[in-house]
C-alpha cells in the first residue's frame, strides 16, 4: 500500500528518462537515487579512473620506445612489439623470478591451507584440556602487526640458517590464525547427524576429515586458499629482506631490477615486467571474484595473518 503512494507523489520525469519504461517502484531500491544519465556518467568515470592505469600498463608493455617517448602521448599504439618483454629477460633473470614466485606461492599456500584445515578440525571436534584458552591465544596473534615482526623473524630465520632459501621465504607465512578461525567456524556449522552416522560406521577422525568435512567445505577452503595465493604472490617486504641473491628473488622484488638506481631502464621494459606480476592474479580474480571478495573483506576484519 505504501509503495504506490510514494511514486504517485514523486515527479515522474525520472521514470520517463529511464531506459526501461517497465521499471516499477518495486524495482527502484531504497536508498537508490533513481536511474539517471549522471549516474551512468559517474559510473563510467569511476570505471575509467581504475581502467586507464591498467590500460597504460598493458599498452606500454607492447609499445615501441618511439611511441612511448613520443609527445603528445600516443594513447592508442599503432605498433605491437615483444621487444620490451625480451629486454626484461636480458636485464634480469625473469625465469628465476617466475619459478621462485610460483614455487613459493604453491608450496606456501598448500602448507598454509593444510595446517589451517587440520588445526580447525582439532579446534572444532577434538578434545583438549584448556582448548578454549588455546583458541583465544591463537586468535590473539591476529593483533600482532606484521611489520613489527619483520626484524625478529629475520633474525630467527638467520639463526635457523635459512636466509636466501625457499624454506626461509615460506616458513613464517605458513602460520595461519585467521584461516584456521574461518574454517573452524565453518566446520562447526556442518550438520551433526553426518558425524554421528560416520561414528556409527566406525570412521576414525582422519577418515571423517578426509571424506566428510573437507568435501563438505570446499567453498570455505577455496576462499582461504585463494586469499593465501594472492597474499603469497603479492608479498613484498618479507621476500625483500630474506633473499639476497638475484636468483632467489620473487617477481615483485624482481621489478626493482628493471629500475636502475638513477631512474628507469625503460618504461616499456618495466611495464612488461609489471604485467607478468599482475596478470595471473587478475585472471584468478576474474574467475573467482566472489570467493576472493568474501575472503579478503573477512581477512581484513581479522588482520589478515
Amino acid at each position, binding site marked *: 500500500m505504501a509503495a504506490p503512494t510514494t511514486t504517485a507523489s514523486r515527479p515522474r520525469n525520472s521514470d520517463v528518462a529511464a531506459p526501461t519504461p517497465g521499471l516499477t517502484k518495486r524495482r527502484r531500491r531504497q536508498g537508490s537515487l533513481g536511474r539517471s544519465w549522471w549516474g551512468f556518467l559517474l559510473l563510467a568515470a569511476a570505471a575509467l579512473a581504475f581502467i586507464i592505469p591498467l590500460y597504460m600498463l598493458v599498452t606500454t608493455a607492447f609499445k615501441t620506445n618511439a611511441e612511448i617517448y613520443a609527445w603528445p602521448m600516443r594513447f592508442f599504439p599503432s605498433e605491437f612489439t615483444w621487444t620490451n618483454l625480451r629486454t626484461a629477460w636480458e636485464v634480469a633473470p625473469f625465469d628465476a623470478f617466475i619459478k621462485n614466485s610460483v614455487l613459493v606461492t604453491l608450496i606456501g599456500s598448500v602448507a598454509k591451507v593444510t595446517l589451517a584445515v587440520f588445526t580447525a578440525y582439532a579446534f572444532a571436534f577434538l578434545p583438549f584440556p584448556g582448548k578454549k584458552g588455546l583458541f583465544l591465544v591463537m586468535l590473539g596473534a591476529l593483533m600482532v602487526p606484521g611489520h613489527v615482526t619483520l626484524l625478529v623473524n629475520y633474525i630467527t630465520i638467520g639463526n635457523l640458517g635459512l636466509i636466501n632459501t625457499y624454506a626461509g621465504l615460506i616458513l613464517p607465512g605458513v602460520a595461519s590464525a585467521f584461516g584456521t578461525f574461518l574454517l573452524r567456524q565453518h566446520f562447526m556449522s556442518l550438520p551433526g547427524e553426518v558425524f554421528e552416522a560416520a561414528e556409527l560406521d566406525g570412521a576414525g577422525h582422519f577418515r571423517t576429515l578426509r571424506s566428510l568435512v573437507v568435501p563438505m567445505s570446499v567453498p570455505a577452503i577455496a576462499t582461504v586458499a585463494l586469499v593465501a595465493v594472492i597474499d603469497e604472490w603479492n608479498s613484498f617486504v618479507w621476500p625483500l629482506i630474506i633473499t639476497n641473491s638475484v636468483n632467489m628473488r620473487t617477481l615483485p622484488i624482481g621489478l626493482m631490477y628493471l629500475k636502475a638506481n638513477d631512474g628507469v631502464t625503460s618504461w616499456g621494459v618495466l611495464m612488461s615486467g609489471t604485467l607478468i606480476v599482475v596478470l595471473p592474479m587478475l585472471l584468478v580474480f576474474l574467475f573467482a571474484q566472489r570467493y*576472493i571478495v568474501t575472503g579478503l573483506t573477512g581477512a581484513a576484519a581479522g588482520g589478515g595473518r
Partner: protein
Amino acid sequence: MTGLATSKAHSTPRMSATYRKRHRRGVALFALFAFPNLALIAVFAYWPVLENLYLSLTRWDFIGPAPVFIGLENYVQLFTSATFLDVLRITLIWVVVVVGVSLVLGIALASLFSMKLPGTTLVTGIVFAPHVIAGAAIAAVWLFIFDPNYGLARVFFNAVGLNSPSWITDAAWALPALLIVSIWKGVGFVSIVYLAGMQGMPSDVLEAARLDGANRWQLFRRIILPLLSPTTFFLVITQTIGAFQAFDVIAVMTGGGPASATTTLSWFIYDQAFNRSNVGYSAAAGTVMFVLLMAITILQFRFVERKVHY
C-alpha cells in the same frame, strides 16, 4: 565428599572404557593436528613481540657477537631526534589522508553502486581489482604515470596549461603522489564493505523516512550514515592499521625520499634495520608502532564488545 563428587561429575562419570580410550586418542590427535600451526604462530607472531622489546633496549648491528644492553637509550634518542619527530608527522599525515579520503570516496562509490545501474557489477569488479594486485606492481605503473615527461599525469597538467611537476623527485610532490597511489589501491575495498553495509540496511526504516518527505541528502545524512556507523568504525580501524604498515608503494616509488619526504614509520623501521644495521634503534621504532597499533586494536575490541551488548 562433595568436592570429589563434583570433580568426578565434571570428568563425565559414566564414561565407558572405550569412550575414555577414544577421548585419550582425541587429545593426542588434537596435539598432532594443531601443534605445527600453533608452534609456528608462537615462533613467528608472539616471540617477535617479546624479542623486539628486548632488542629495543640494546645496541647491535647483526654482526657483533651479541646485542649490548643499553637501557632506554634508543627511546631517548628517538624522541629527541628531529628526524624521528618528522617521521611521526609524515606518518600521521599519511594515515589521516589515506583513511579519510578512502572513506569519503568509498562511501560515495558505494552509494553510486547501490543505484544498481546496468553495468554496476562490472564496475564494482574493476574498482576492487587493484586490491588483488601486488602493491609493487601498482607502484611501478604509477611511477610511469607520474613521469614528468612521458606520463599520463602530464596530460592533465598540460590540459590546464601547467607543466607537470617532477612528482617523485620533488620533495613537495612525492608524498601527495604516494598518497594518491595508496588511495587508488585501497578505495575499492572500502566501497565494497560500505556497499555490503548498505545492502544489509532495514528497508522499512528508509521507506518510513521517505514517506515522511525526507529528500536524498536528508536520507543520507540522517538515516544511512548513522546506520553505517558500525561499518565506518570497522573501516577506520582496519584502514588505519593498514595505512600504518604501508610499505611496497614507498619502497618501489621513492625509497623514503627525496631526502626523507616520504619516510613513514614503516619505512623508518625497515631502513634503520636493513639499510643501516641499527638493530636496537629499529626495534625501538617497532615498539612505538606496536604500542600505537595495539591502542587502536584495543579500541576496536571495546567497540565490538559494546556493539554486542545493544
